[in-house]
């Protein structure tokens, strides 16, 4: 999923300061799962903003709404009935959702209330970790299901480096060495010979190197 963290309240307050009526929009997908921008967080931010502005003697009117999916135009369309009379939208979705709302409603400013972080997985309650960088040419079949692009600090395709010690990365004892994990996994699977294979220099065209990316499924596109 796409993970996110709420922006500091001060930053959100600064964005909405010039306005009197805002629409605060959450998303029911990834940001709900990582507890950053779902219905519950919309309620919390709404109360916090109202309290902050009341202290300054200002009454900020906030409409709250959480969409099923903010990166999908058919759900974003729901906002068209709510947006009338609103000075600004504050989106609690990831960057995809913020941009979809901005694309649909061209005359209303849209501000992000979260910082979109990475594509990751939940390690345990309350902890999410990066797992994928969307390089567009998945290597996981070769590396035992552990991604060196997302999980090795140096993105080494043939590791480990000299900074690996006791299975940890030199940047922090809290960070696993991806190549240690890969080796252990290949051993467990009896696939040590895969480690001997030299992975060639990566072709970054499938990643961000090729500019903004798009998927066109001609069988589905209208």
């Amino acid at each position, binding site marked *: 999923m796409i993970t996110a963290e709420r922006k500091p309240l001060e930053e959100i307050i600064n964005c909405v300061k010039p306005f009197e009526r805002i629409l605060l929009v959450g998303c029911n997908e990834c940001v709900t799962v990582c507890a950053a921008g779902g219905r519950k967080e919309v309620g919390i931010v709404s109360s916090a903003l109202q309290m902050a502005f009341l202290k300054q003697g200002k009454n900020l009117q906030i409409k709250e709404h959480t969409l099923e999916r903010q990166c999908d135009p058919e759900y974003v369309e729901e906002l068209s009935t709510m947006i009338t009379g609103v000075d600004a939208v504050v989106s609690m979705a990831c960057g995809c959702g913020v941009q979809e709302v901005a694309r649909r409603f061209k005359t209303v400013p849209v501000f992000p209330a979260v910082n979109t972080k990475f594509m990751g997985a939940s390690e345990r309650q309350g902890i999410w970790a990066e797992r994928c960088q969307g390089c567009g040419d998945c290597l996981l079949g070769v590396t035992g299901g552990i991604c060196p692009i997302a999980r090795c600090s140096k993105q080494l395709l043939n590791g480990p480096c000299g900074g690996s010690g006791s299975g940890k990365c030199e940047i922090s004892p809290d960070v696993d060495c991806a190549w240690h994990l890969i080796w252990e996994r290949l051993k467990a699977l009896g696939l040590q010979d895969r480690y001997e294979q030299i992975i060639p*220099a*990566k*072709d*970054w*065209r499938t*990643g*961000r*190197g*090729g*500019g903004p990316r798009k998927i066109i499924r001609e069988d589905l596109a209208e």
Partner: protein
Amino acid sequence: MNFQKQLESKQFIVLAEMNTPKGIDVSRFVMDIRQLKDRVDAVVVPDLDNGVMRMNALAGGVLAKRQGLETLIHVYCRDRNRMALQADLLAAHALGLHNLIVAPAQEISQCDHRDAAVVNDLNETGLLETIGTLQNGKDLAGFDLEGRPEFTVGCLMTPWSDKASFEEEIKLTQKKISLGASYVVTPPVFDTGRFAQQLAVLQTLNVPIVATVFLIKSVAVARYIAANEPGAYISEDLIRRIRKAQDREIECLKIAGETVSRLRDMTQAVLIQTMGWEHRLPALLDAAGL
């Protein structure tokens, strides 16, 4: 005379662009530079120009300087992060290369290594700020430098196709000037009449203007530019002139020479780009009466 003094002297400056080899045989590169001694005021060495992997501008600049010519080098952001850029700038200064042109880089999909990872840690304005920071004796992390480099820094304008993109380019160039660019290099000028109309706006930038003269080498090149660069204004008359010439190569050199000669009365400097025909630069300069 160093380039900074040339700019201050208000004399007409002629710059010639010299591309480094793709490989290690520098004999032609050096020969082409030697024949320009006393014929141009300085040479410009681009860095991986047009997205072609080749010897870098740092080495090319040092080789050019060794031939006794004042030298300018390009610096750009696509392939180096802020650490590498700063390190190269310090190296350039230590090796006697004190003149920089902050240049845009070709998008990676148009380079000859399309599978390469793109860096773009800084952009052109960020690089200009970085040069300013180094000149103040600090690096971007705030650490003190041993000795302050001093550079003469310019910037490149990218081609504009209409009034709106010209205005945008002027605004961006103003920003670059405010960050330390002390001269501006224009896109290639093919139609000096049209350029004259834009010159009044360019002059409001209040820095020396270096007009680029691009040597058209064939009818095909002329047609390609005319079709793909709407702001270039290559007329059918010009294409016809090359097509009907008895010796097309000589005609192309004459056309570029005439452009240089016309620009002499309009701008403080010209930069001549020959893109592989550097050996014909003396003939082009003859045609320009220089």
